[in-house]
């Protein structure tokens, strides 16, 4: 193009990109410290100026599970595959929280950090991704709580637990994929932030978090199967409680959906990323 280009190879060339661009793995790796620092910031800030502090991490899902086991187990007397209802719904909540909290936080991550987006460069994907460590931490604490419950209620552990990382990966990927897409959409249309809570609420009741899939009449089973969260929650229960999976195909569908949503979400994010600083 000119005489300069021959003598020296530029480290970075900045110019208008068109169409889809690849996910910048190298860049993400270089900024991994930022990812951890942002995650640490969120964890530190979450329970500042609260009296109970980190106890909320346990209290929140426990209260949810307690409520569900009362409404669905005691009042509605739904079956729970032979597991004490509290443990049954707590495990459901554990997996559901990983999904819904990651989805909620990653969706809000861009506009929540608008001041960073408009003032410094870093791979923007860091923002939705940085929600993962915090959620993972909460999950591990919740897992400890589950161990306590399992001892109290005498629920035996199964070897299936070895598959836990795989199922967690499905939950995170599914949530991040949607979250990345929503977060970039939210930059232009703030409406999305009001849609997400409704969507999450809807999904919660459309998924077997607080009830067993066997409680649903057979003619609706197929309809429920469209929901990719179903297979994920079933697999998660199978993993921690050893309950049978009603539909193996549903689990595979969940996994494919998760991987697909993750990569498509990341690509869509990358495509819209260029406009973030100009619009946000």
């Amino acid at each position, binding site marked *: *193009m*000119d*005489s*300069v*280009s021959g*003598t*020296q190879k*530029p*480290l*970075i*060339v*900045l*110019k*208008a*990109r068109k169409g889809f661009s690849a996910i910048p793995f190298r860049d993400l790796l270089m*900024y991994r*410290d*930022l990812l*951890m*620092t*942002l995650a640490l*910031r969120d964890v*530190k*800030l979450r329970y*500042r*100026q609260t009296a109970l502090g980190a106890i909320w991490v346990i209290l929140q899902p426990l209260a949810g599970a307690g409520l569900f086991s009362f409404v669905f187990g005691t009042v509605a007397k739904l079956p729970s595959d032979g597991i004490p209802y509290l443990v049954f719904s707590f495990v459901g909540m554990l997996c559901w929280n990983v999904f819904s909290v990651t989805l909620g936080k990653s969706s809000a991550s861009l506009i929540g950090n608008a*001041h*960073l*987006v*408009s*003032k*410094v*460069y*870093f791979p923007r994907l860091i923002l939705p991704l940085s929600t993962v460590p915090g959620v993972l931490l909460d999950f591990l604490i919740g897992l400890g709580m589950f161990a306590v419950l399992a001892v109290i209620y005498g629920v035996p552990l199964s070897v299936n637990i070895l598959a836990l990382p795989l199922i967690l990966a499905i939950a995170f990927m599914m949530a991040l994929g949607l979250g990345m897409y929503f977060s970039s959409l939210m930059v232009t*249309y*703030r*409406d*999305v932030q009001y849609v997400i809570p409704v969507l999450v609420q809807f999904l919660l009741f459309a998924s077997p978090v607080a009830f067993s899939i066997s409680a649903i009449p057979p003619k609706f089973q197929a309809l429920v199967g469209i929901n990719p969260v179903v297979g994920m929650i079933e697999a998660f229960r199978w993993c921690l409680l050893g309950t049978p999976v009603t539909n193996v195909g549903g689990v595979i569908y969940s996994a494919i959906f998760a991987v697909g949503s993750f990569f498509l979400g990341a690509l869509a994010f990358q495509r819209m990323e*260029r406009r973030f*600083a*100009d619009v946000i």
Partner: protein
Amino acid sequence: MSSNLALSVHGLGKEYRIAHEGQRATTLGEAITRRIKNPLASTSYETFRALDDVSFEVEKGEVLGIIGRNGAGKSTLLKILSRITEPTHGEVRLYGRIGSLLEVGTGFHPELSGRENIFLNGAILGMRRREIERQFDAIVDFAEVEKFLDTPVKRYSSGMYVRLAFAVAAHLNPEILVVDEVLAVGDAQFQKKCLGKMQDVSRQEGRTVLFVSHNMAAVNQLCTRAIVLHKGQVKFSGSAAEAVRWYDSPGSLEFATTYSEDRFRRPDPDASLEIQFRKLAFPTNKTQNTFETGDPIQFKATLYSKTGHSQFRLGLCVFTADGTPIGSIYSPENLEINSDTETNYSIELPATHLAPGQYFMGLSVGTGGYRGSVKDFDAVFDVLHFEVVPTTREEETYTDWNMAWGRIQFPSIDIKPCPPQSGIKNMSVEAIR
């Protein structure tokens, strides 16, 4: 020579599309209903060119100043260079790691302690954790906040906050550093420290710095070279001193000294314009719009009136470059203008006692003044930019006026010793002008 480039910019352009009033959908619902109602309509956009075919090169170790008025495209250029936004045309080639400092304390969180914020801010600016740990003591030392490291920064004084924020940024180690006017913060002493630090960065460590500022003195002092941006284009490129001189010279950027209808900001769009400003200019015998302290400030105004008017007055306000009003005056209400003719007036402000620095004026023509019932036929703002420089007339001159001393240099001071004995000696000292 070309093998030693730090960065090169080729034909860089950035366009923003501005949708016409009421045509832009800001909610999803609006976007959808609009599409349904009118599926074929395309929103009409106006294209605004923030940058237009900008090209320049910077060599390693150079400190390039980027000067230009508000809206000249400096911020857009910085945002592209620091990878916050993408250009529409052209490209930038970076031959090294770039770090940018568009504001001080980006990402600081008030609830977190100083220590936590150092790590947070450092990471946001692109530093690795190991790097921050290595520099931690130096940062704390530079900021002078040892005692408050574990206090949430919301309890910091604003001075401490800024010092800490700058300290982190100053220890950023990219090969190319992009700095926006972050030096316009903190007290004078700290500013000096920051300037010194930036000088070290370029001179001793051989790093490339791009420095954007309104502060001509700082540009002059820090930069080896400078470019002047105006309306998105590079209008001048040369040594820092040349660029500063060019920037200040009349006619270089047309609006700096003379009137041009489309570029004037009229604060009141509904002014009657019974009498209106046509042209404003500093005397042509001056080489530039620079006045020495103590000089009278003279300029010419060309007014026009369709109907003619007698007994009107001129109002004048002097502002610092950042828009702070310094002082105002209304002329006596005894000016006259004939109908349908342009009339020239020579205007002089004797002995303003303005301290060295950058200023501009706001002018009005109308009736009424100090006693109220002000009615302006026309008013213009952000015109007649000028600089006041230290006088060269006298022996006891100074080279630098500290902004912390204010904007008025008092003309004289009387000091009388009053011994217990009778017979007071009078001593009058004329101030160092």
